């Protein structure tokens, strides 16, 4: 957040560790290596906690939708409270979202973190599927190639 828009006016500030934080901002694309850290960070945060997903990349993959190393939808792995479009979103859009989130918290509308416990199997299954691969994804193809390679030799 730049000083021009100054989010500290609303009492929003960055925190050094996840254990002090209330809101997790996921700013854009998430690669597999980062996803592991995001899940860990999310789980470290004390309840109540909220997630703000930024930009197109967190909804449907954004411009990296066909990349082999970025996930396409953040909400499959951790529950998201509010999603903002844009690539990158303007600071105003982000502030608008933060203020909406504050209102949602006031009115009790925002409570996605409860979903994480209720649907833990769903989230866990998705996380494991992408993070703990035990066999190649394009498996058949690879085996064919190996056969081709050995037949040439």
């Amino acid at each position, binding site marked *: 957040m730049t000083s021009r828009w100054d989010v500290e*006016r609303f009492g929003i500030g960055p925190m050094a560790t996840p254990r002090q934080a209330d809101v997790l901002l996921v700013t854009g694309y998430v690669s597999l290596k980062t996803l592991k850290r995001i899940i860990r960070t999310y789980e470290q945060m004390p309840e109540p906690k909220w997630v703000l997903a930024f930009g*197109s990349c967190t909804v449907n993959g954004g*411009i990296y939708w066909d990349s082999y190393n970025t996930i396409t*939808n953040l909400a499959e792995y951790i*529950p998201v409270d509010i999603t*903002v479009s844009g690539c990158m979103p303007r600071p105003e859009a982000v*502030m608008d979202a933060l203020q909406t989130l504050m209102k949602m918290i006031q009115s009790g509308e*925002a*409570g996605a973190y409860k979903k994480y416990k209720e*649907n833990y199997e769903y989230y866990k299954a998705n996380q494991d599927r992408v993070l703990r691969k035990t066999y190649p994804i394009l498996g058949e193809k690879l085996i064919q190639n190996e056969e081709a390679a050995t037949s040439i030799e």
Partner: protein
Amino acid sequence: MALGDKSVYSPLTTLKNLFKRPMTIKYPKEILRVFPKEGVSPNYRGLHTNDLEKCVGCAACQRICPFDAIEMKIIGQNEQGRAIKKPVVDYGRCSFCAFCVDVCPTNSLKMSRHYIYKIKTVKSLSAKDEVEFVKDKFRIMPDEKLGDDIGYNTGKAKKVLG
């Protein structure tokens, strides 16, 4: 200059700064006021608008889109029984590069200066439904709703593509 080595004019500097406009823009009370028009720049690439009367459904925007963000949706049939198609923009993919605006042959697809689009996730939905809910909400068929404040619009003469 060492620390604490202050000029005798220091109080004057304070006075001068007192009447200066602050750098901070008190959004949402006030908006950016740096361009001839209020708000973002005159040619900002924001959310799309589409003049559905002028749009012929040629799918040129779909073909140029680098990130496969545009889908041609069938919205009806014309007299010859051909399907009428209009573009649907998936803001879960769009990168606001404005290539689709450049390539539009009828100049119907434009980009407005609006940029705020957010979706609150519904608490009562289950995790799986929520994913589909947000994905679905981010797919919009642009129309003239935002038309009062159109921004990025390459005229015929200025076109880069097509």
